[in-house]
Structure formats: structure tokens, C-alpha cells
């Protein structure tokens, strides 16, 4: 065995060390799922840059650190976390280092709608959960998804029954409070036929030391459902954040996703969306990073059936000596005729040392399709700067405004005003250069 193989094996063993202490679930299939995941972790290795999917992203630093599962849970008060609240999102589930915090949460159990911790949903929804939980996210060849599944216990469960709209946005707040801890946030959203819901998946930290968030989210839209999925990654500056999200969009459903990555030393977000007939998705993203941060977004939009529509706009604003990666695959399967797909990757480098790798990837196996994609990398446009200067703004003010606008265009797409304002303020603060 090679040196790196030994290191990997040891590393994964350490991560798995806390797993036997998990209480068994009353559901046999869930215990079997965890056991299957433990087995996969035993077989898989941590990816390196030799793996095509990790070519641009070096996570060797992660494997040099030692993280352990949470041992003691920290009890937080409302005052500690209030600043993360989103005004409109009064339905809220809070997880502290991955552990459900009932005293801070205000879920829903009403008329078939459930916004609860996973085990509280078993009695009413076990049969609905089983086909999706651990099944949408393929963990057989994904060591991080396998690790998360091996530790599957607390999780945000959202079930919206048919023809039901959840009036207020649901806020899933994952808070990191302890250094050297690895947590396994997990979300499952089941949107019934003709239902509608808006969910904010939000990662924050109360401390600045290194920790590791390894998250998995699974979302299933049944026919004619509409889901707005907002993802905010604002982890601590030394954090490692690796997340996998799988979405299945059934016939005539509509999935709208806006994700922003502001935090973490190294972050990686894998998003896979599969579209059925006449399904629609808009998948937009913004990475705003500086210093020595690395933010990697890998998306795959899979047009599995005819007549589906996908729109994607991904932007990166890269300062310092930071490194952004975008890999956007659009797959159009044989028979997925009349697919209509548009993808755009736009990248703004603020310094000479900032770096971006962008890779639009089209795999088209149908012949009657409309697919466009484009990528730009660069600095601000001088004509735009001149336009603002000609209106009286200083060059610095002009550049600040254009940089802000570059990011705000993505945040504008979120359907929640207070969150929009909050995040736009972050963009403003992070992109404003003092004259």
C-alpha cells in the first residue's frame, strides 16, 4: 500500500471512530443503510487531485487535520444565535454541531406538513422517507456522502403533502461551535404533487478555529411541485465544508436554487439535479472569496427526459490569492428531445494572484436540443468604470459599485427580502475597497 493510501485509511478510521456509539434506529432499513455506508467508507479512499472530479481542488490539508465527532453538545441560548435569524422564516430547525437543538427550533407538524427532526417524522412518514433517504445521493462512490450516511441520525426533515403551500420560508440553521469537530448535517425535503415550499439551508459558525462540516441534502419534487432552495455557506474562516446535494425534479415541477459560498478555508459543493419531462430548474450560484480560500462548485444538470428547461448562472468574485473552481456539467440523455438549456459562468478576478478554474461541460446525446453555454474570466470592464466616472463617481467608487453589482445580481434572485439585504450587505462589505 502506498504512503498516501495508508494515510487515507487511517484518516477515515479516525473519522469513523465515533460511529459505533450512535443509537440504533427503530427502523431496520435505516440501520441497514448506515451499515452499508460504513462498508463503503471501508472500501473508498479520500479523493486526490489525480481524480478527475477533484483535479483543481487540493484537499490534502483536510486529511492532515484530525477531527472527531461531537462528544458533548453545547447548549446555546436564543441570544447567541438570534443574529442569524431570517425575519420572514419563522419556521426554523436549529442544529448545533450537527445535533438537533429542540429548544431553539420551531418546526411544524400540521395538516400533513412536517418540518421536524428526522426521528419525529418516522411515525407519520417512514414509508415516504425510505425510497429517498440515502438513495438520492449516491454514496457508493462518494466517500463524503458515505461518511455522512454512516453517521445518519439527526436530520432536517421537511414533508409537504400534495397541493399544499408552506406559507413561510423554512430556515435550516446549522451552527458550528466547537473546534476540531466534524459534523454531518443532513436534510431531506419531500415536496408532494402540486406543493410549494421555500427552504433556506444555512451554515454558520460561532468560532474561528478549524472544524469540518460534511453535509448531505436530498430533495425530491413530485409532479407539479415548486421548491425554492436557498443555500448560504458562511462558515468560519478556517473551516472545511464539503457538501453533496441531490435533487430529483419530477414531471412539470420547478426547482429554483440560489447558493452562495462566502466562508470556509476550503469548500466543495456538489449539486446534482435530475429533470423529468417538462421539468424546469434554475440553478444559480455565487462564490465570494479572498485571502487563501478555495471554493469549488460542481454541478450536474441531468436532462433525463424530453421538454425540460434548465437555466444556470454561476459567478465567482475572487480576491487575495484565493482560488475558485466551477465545473458545470449539462447532460442531455438520448431521447431528451427539445431540451432547452442555458449555462453561463462569469468570473471576476480582483487581484493578480486570484485564480479561477471554470469548466463548462456539455454531454449531449439527443439531436433536437437548444443548449448554450459560455464562460468569462476577467477584470471589470473599463467602459463600465468610465460610464460611472462620467457620472461623478471616483474610480474606486465606480469599481466598488460594479464589483458589488456583479455579486448582487445573483443574490437578487433569492425570494426573501431580509436575507437578500443581509447578504448584499456582506457583498458590499467584502468588495468595498477604501480609497
Amino acid at each position, binding site marked *: 500500500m502506498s504512503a498516501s493510501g495508508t494515510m487515507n485509511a487511517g484518516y477515515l478510521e479516525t473519522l469513523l471512530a465515533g460511529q459505533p456509539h450512535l443509537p440504533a434506529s427503530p427502523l431496520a432499513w435505516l440501520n441497514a443503510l448506515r451499515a452499508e455506508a460504513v462498508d463503503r467508507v471501508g472500501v473508498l479512499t479520500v479523493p486526490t487531485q489525480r481524480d478527475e472530479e477533484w483535479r483543481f481542488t487540493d484537499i490534502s490539508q483536510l486529511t492532515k487535520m484530525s477531527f472527531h465527532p461531537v462528544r458533548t453538545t453545547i447548549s446555546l441560548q436564543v441570544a447567541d444565535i438570534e443574529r442569524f435569524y431570517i425575519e420572514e422564516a419563522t419556521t426554523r430547525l436549529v442544529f448545533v454541531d450537527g445535533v438537533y437543538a429542540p429548544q431553539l427550533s420551531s418546526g411544524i407538524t400540521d395538516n400533513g406538513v412536517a418540518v421536524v427532526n428526522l426521528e419525529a417524522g418516522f411515525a407519520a412518514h417512514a414509508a415516504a422517507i425510505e425510497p429517498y433517504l440515502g438513495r438520492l445521493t449516491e454514496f457508493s462512490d462518494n466517500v463524503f456522502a458515505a461518511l455522512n450516511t454512516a453517521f445518519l441520525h439527526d436530520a432536517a426533515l421537511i414533508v409537504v403533502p400534495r397541493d399544499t403551500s408552506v406559507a413561510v420560508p423554512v430556515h435550516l440553521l446549522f451552527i458550528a461551535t466547537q473546534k476540531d469537530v466534524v459534523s454531518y448535517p443532513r436534510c431531506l425535503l419531500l415536496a408532494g404533487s402540486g406543493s410549494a415550499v421555500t427552504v433556506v439551508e444555512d451554515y454558520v459558525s460561532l468560532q474561528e478555529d478549524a472544524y469540518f462540516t460534511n453535509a448531505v441534502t436530498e430533495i425530491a419534487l413530485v409532479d407539479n411541485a415548486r421548491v425554492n432552495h436557498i443555500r448560504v455557506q458562511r462558515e468560519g474562516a478556517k473551516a472545511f465544508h464539503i457538501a453533496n446535494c441531490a435533487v430529483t425534479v419530477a414531471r412539470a415541477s420547478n426547482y429554483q436554487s440560489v447558493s452562495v459560498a462566502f466562508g470556509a478555508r476550503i469548500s466543495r459543493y456538489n449539486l446534482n439535479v435530475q429533470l423529468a419531462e417538462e421539468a424546469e430548474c434554475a440553478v444559480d450560484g455565487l462564490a465570494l472569496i479572498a485571502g487563501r480560500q478555495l471554493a469549488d462548485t460542481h454541478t450536474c444538470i441531468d436532462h433525463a427526459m424530453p421538454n425540460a428547461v434548465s437555466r444556470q448562472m454561476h459567478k465567482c468574485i475572487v480576491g487575495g490569492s484565493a482560488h475558485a473552481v466551477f465545473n458545470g456539467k449539462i447532460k442531455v440523455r438520448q431521447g431528451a428531445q427539445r431540451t432547452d438549456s442555458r449555462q453561463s459562468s462569469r468570473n471576476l478576478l480582483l487581484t493578480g494572484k486570484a485564480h479561477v478554474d471554470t469548466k463548462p461541460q456539455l454531454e449531449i446525446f439527443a439531436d433536437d436540443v437548444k443548449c448554450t453555454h459560455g464562460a468569462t474570466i476577467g477584470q471589470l*470592464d*473599463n*467602459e*463600465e468604470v*468610465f*460610464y*460611472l*466616472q*462620467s*457620472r*461623478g*463617481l*471616483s*474610480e474606486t*467608487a*465606480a469599481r466598488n*459599485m*460594479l464589483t*458589488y*453589482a*456583479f*455579486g*448582487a*445580481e445573483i443574490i*437578487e434572485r433569492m425570494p426573501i427580502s431580509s436575507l437578500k439585504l443581509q447578504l448584499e450587505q456582506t457583498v458590499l462589505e467584502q468588495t468595498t475597497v477604501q480609497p
Partner: protein
Amino acid sequence: MIYQDSKILLEVRGLCANVSGTEILKGLDLTVRSGEIHAIMGPNGSGKSTFSKILAGHSAYEVTGGTVMFEGQNLLDLAPEERARAGVFLAFQYPIEIPGVGNSQFLRLTYNTVQTHRGKEELDPLEFDDYVREKMKLLEMSPDFLERSVNEGFSGGEKKRNEILQMAMLDPRLAILDETDSGLDIDALRIVASGVNQLANKDNAIVLVTHYQRLLNYIVPDYVHVMEAGRIIKTGGKELALELESRGYDWVGAENKAAARATA
């Protein structure tokens, strides 16, 4: 309008300029007094747009000779934003779209920046809203324009109206309108022109840069200049524009060459 003894706003003498090593302006002279409306006409490539961008301070153009005085100060010494604050305004031929920035936010920021530098009071968002809505009536613009991103998804006519709205707000002493008529249908042209006419007064001046005579039916110039190969080669009254419309530009060039030969 030409006023007796009105003061000189802009005086350009022997202006020469290059872009990427190519000489575009070759000794341009122009004097503009307050109250006047000037039209600069000429075929494509004669240097009209270059001249307007140089007045606004575009960094892509290198001034290699001549002087430009604006109200007694050397305009070429000023950065673009300083020119704007001093009272020079350029309405762009192709206004820039800024997705992500609300038009109202943008207009207020530019207005307040310029006001501050002129030693005047800033307006808070509510006061500004009243002010901008009043100005928008001038251009028959719907208040919806304030909610949208700057120029994003605006039609050609809407963009040009938004330019003149900015002119109305920033209250320049010298406004240069670069091909403001291009891409406008007849109704939009009428609205834009009527806005400009209402903004013209005895203390400011307007320079219209245009290829066609059409705009001059609506904004009547005091002087019409013909540019060719980086110089103004003929100056006349508003009737010169009509003559250009019927005869084209070639005869002006020929006449100019003949005159040059005669003096040589």
C-alpha cells in the same frame, strides 16, 4: 440660443488625439458660449464620437496636442469624475447596463456625489424620490424605471431617456449628447428632444453629436459644424444641416480642399 456677450464655456484649440497609435483628431477648434446649442455632424469615422469621449475624459484616448479650456480651467488636467462634478456631462451612445444595481440607488448616489462636490445639500431617499419623479415627468418615464436595474433590459429609447434623466438631475453646464438619436423611433425622439429643450437655458450649452439631420428638426441648433478627418472643416447655421441632408457630406470636403489649394 445665441446671447450677446455670453461667456465662453468651452474653448478647444488645435486638439490632436490618438487611439492605439492612430491619429483621430488633427487640430480641432471649437468655441462654445453659454446659452448655445451646437451640432457636430460628419460621416462615420470623422472623429465625432472620439471628440465627445475625450471631453468626458476617456482614458483610451491620448491627447497629443492642443488645449481644452472649460470655464477657465484646463479640462485635460481633470479626471473624468472631476469633469462631471465641474459640470461636463456626456450622454452615451451606448449606455452601460448594470444588473444588480437599482436605478434609483444609482441615480441618488451619482446625484449626491456631484451635489456634495458642488458644496450643495445631499437629498435623503425620500426627498430624492420626489425630486427624481418630478424630473421623470419631463421624459414621460414611468416610475417603474426606478425599481429596475440600471439600463438592464431597457429598450434603446428607454436607455436614451435614462441618459437625459441623468442630465436633468446632474444639471451640467456643458452637455454632450453622443448620437442620442440613434436607435430611437419617432415618438421616443420627440420625447427625448422635448426633454433636452426644456433643460437648455442661458447658463448652459449643449453639443449634439449626430450623423443625421433628423434630431435637428426637434432640437434646433445655433451652429452646425461639419467634421472630417479629425477637424471641423465648415461651420454654419441650422440651414447647413438641411443642406447636408440633401447633398451629403462630400461637397463640403471638396470645397474645403479647393479652398486649401487656393490659399496654397
